[in-house]
């Protein structure tokens, strides 16, 4: 098998070229996914770049990204394959006059040309390099999860009428989950596990710099620092990385080169999406100068 990466630093380096700043943990897991040929299950809060990771990996490996968006009620006809029922009916109807034997008809209507491939089957049959992204896998019901197991462990699909279709290659498979429910142990066992959290100050600053290159270093630093500060408040929904980036862009469009409480107050709605959160953050940041020392250090 062609190995896509030769070392962890190389993974990080090449992801960086796709504007994705990975830390050692992310890089390490992607590298292992390649080496061990195992799917990666990525969990973490919304908007920390789980889906982005898949896109970036696809980009740097020059692969096509096949995406299966999960939702409640997803079933095998939407995820794996489906027989083209209407076409089959037409075929039978068209055949009435010719009096073909049923065995022939049956063999015919359950052949490849009546098969509608859905993302998973498409990924398995793909000839070119691909990255398979199974997005928000926590949204499907536990029963549906079982559908994925065969694909994830052996990268094959069994279709009763056609037999087992085995993948020509082992692509990188990335599953994401927002952790709205626990995934089954069976699924987790088949995957490598990666938890992406909000980045630390330095990384977030860099992300802002990479994604919004027009922002100068100082502003990026300030943006990251304010966002970190806001994340420490107890909010319904903490600002995600994508919101940080949006905020940096907003500041840019408004022509602000520096952040002061007034600017924050005006643009807070870009970062926070609940009115109660906005009110809270505004209040906090305006009356911020409570002269206590190492609060964080003490409370741990």
């Amino acid at each position, binding site marked *: 098998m062609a190995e896509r990466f030769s070392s*962890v630093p190389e993974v990080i380096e090449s992801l960086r070229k796709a504007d994705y700043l990975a830390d*050692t*943990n992310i*890089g*390490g*897991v992607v*590298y*292992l996914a390649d*080496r*061990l*040929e*195992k799917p*990666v*299950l990525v*969990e973490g809060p919304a908007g920390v770049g789980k889906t982005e990771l898949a896109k970036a990996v696809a980009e740097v490996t020059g692969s096509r990204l096949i995406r299966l968006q999960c939702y*409640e009620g997803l079933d095998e006809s939407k995820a794996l394959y489906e027989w083209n*029922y*209407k076409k089959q*009916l037409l075929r039978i*109807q068209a055949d009435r006059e010719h009096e073909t034997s049923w065995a022939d008809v049956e063999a015919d209507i359950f052949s490849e040309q009546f098969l509608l491939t859905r993302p998973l089957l498409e990924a398995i049959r793909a000839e070119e390099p691909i990255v398979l992204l199974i997005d928000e896998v926590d949204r499907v*019901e536990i029963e549906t999860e079982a559908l994925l197991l065969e694909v994830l462990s052996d990268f094959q699909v069994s279709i009763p009428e056609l037999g087992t279709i085995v993948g020509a290659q082992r692509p990188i498979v990335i599953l994401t989950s927002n*952790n*709205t*429910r*626990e995934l089954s*142990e069976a699924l*987790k*066992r*088949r*995957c*490598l*596990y*990666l*938890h992406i959290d909000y980045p630390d*100050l330095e990384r977030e600053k860099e992300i802002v710099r990479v994604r919004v290159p027009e922002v100068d270093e100082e502003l990026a630093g*300030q943006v990251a*620092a*304010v966002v*970190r*500060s806001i994340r*420490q408040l*107890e909010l*319904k929904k903490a600002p995600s990385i994508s919101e940080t980036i949006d905020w940096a862009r907003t500041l840019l469009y408004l022509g602000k080169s520096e*952040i*002061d*409480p007034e600017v*924050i107050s005006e643009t807070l709605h870009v970062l926070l999406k609940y009115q*109660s959160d906005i009110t*809270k953050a505004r209040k906090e*940041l305006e*009356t*911020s*100068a409570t002269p206590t*020392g*190492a*609060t*964080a*250090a*003490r409370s*741990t």
Partner: protein
Amino acid sequence: MSLPINAAKLTDAIERRATAGGEGDDGGRPQPGSMLDVLQGFVHELRAAGLPVSMTENLDAMRAVEHVELVDRDTFKSALGATLVKHHHHWRAFETVFDVYFSLYAPGIGGDEADAEAWAEMQAMEGGGAAGDLSPEELAEMLLAALMNGDEDELRRLAAMAVSRYAGMEPGRPVGGTYYLYRTLRQLDLEGLAAQMMGRAREQGDGPPEDDELAERLQREAFDERLKRLREIVEAEIRRRLVADRGVEAMARTLRKPLPEDVDFMHASREEMQALQRAIYPLTRALAARLAQRRKRKNRGHLDFRSTVRHSLSYGGVPAEPKFRHPRPSRPEIMVVADISGSVASFARFTLQFVYAMASQFSKVRSWVFIDGIDEVTRFFQEADDIAEAIGRVNTEADVVWVDGHSDYGHALEVFRERHLTEITPKSSIILLGDARNNYHASQNGIVKELAQRARHVYWLNPEPRGYWDTGDSIVSDYGIYCDGVFECRNLRQLERFVSAIVEG
């Protein structure tokens, strides 16, 4: 891909690792070549700590470490983490065990030559307990400088010195790591350092302007972060020395803590409570999703004649594809009745969090709290923006004391029936929470029977261990016989079990 583990390769890797480390000392250090054993011990310890590590995962970990450089501690850790730890909230437990098992492999955490020297140097100093020629003031000064620059390596070196000097560690002394940590940190005076850092930043002119509160806040947070890091470094250093002294297994045993899902609600610390709070939310979402789904999945609705005819047009008028109406989604109404008396106080706090989380998921959740009187608190949860506010209002405004403020389930239930019996419909599920310690009042368990007859389900969650049920003034079985289920609910794991039981049952 070959599954068998290449032991020779592993051994080879560990030998390379050992030479790269290059330090002579081996106090309790596992011998080179025993990497496989170390990993097995490591996995064993993870299991002992409660992490569910399966055979497959174990093998994956073995395969994974073949692909990473063992010298690179971070990558090594992420390789083990990715293969062995499949729940985020287990990560902390994993980190602790990892530190214990692999602390001796890494002199500094980076593991390069300079660190190795520092390590050897430090080892030499350890016996005497003196940290070179530095005076306490010099040490403090250097520490401050390192903190200002955010220089991790320097911090690590200084932390090691500080531990040698202040912790007063002696081999074989039966004291926990916390004691040494306390002694070291007291001498380092983190709070004082924070103030000094702020002062220093201002002197250097790159600190925040006097009147800029925002900038000051940000700066302070940045420093707090570094101090927190320093604390962690000191902690790791102490742990490492303890491991060297006592051996890996013993140390891992002392550090073993219950996993978040096993933390007892009644005895949770503040930090643990916060973690629980975060964990509850997905659980209620699952509950909501599953309850709403059940009917949707179970039965398709009636045949939709109109739609079937419409679709038959695409098959030349043959109604080949029958269409069905969507069934109406069920809207379960949930009624939560919770005891908030002193005997279950910490459970009550958790209960309220659970109710709050449920209220955000289900359209119809009504809640009551009681001690010997009972009061509806639904409005507090609907109006409040966050959980702390809601709980505060429940505790101050709810009228739950009738006579003396000792639990009286009988009276509370009686009032509940009087006011709300007619509102209970076959759609309602009632969840009663409490230890059923009734202070020898009348049980009035006939009321529960009545409720059960009207409602779809009645469940009882009891925060006490099962062994204590029906001892003393607990009369949980008197009520339990009329409920659809009585569940012990002392930790998240049990709560999860309850949720899946009612969802499936």
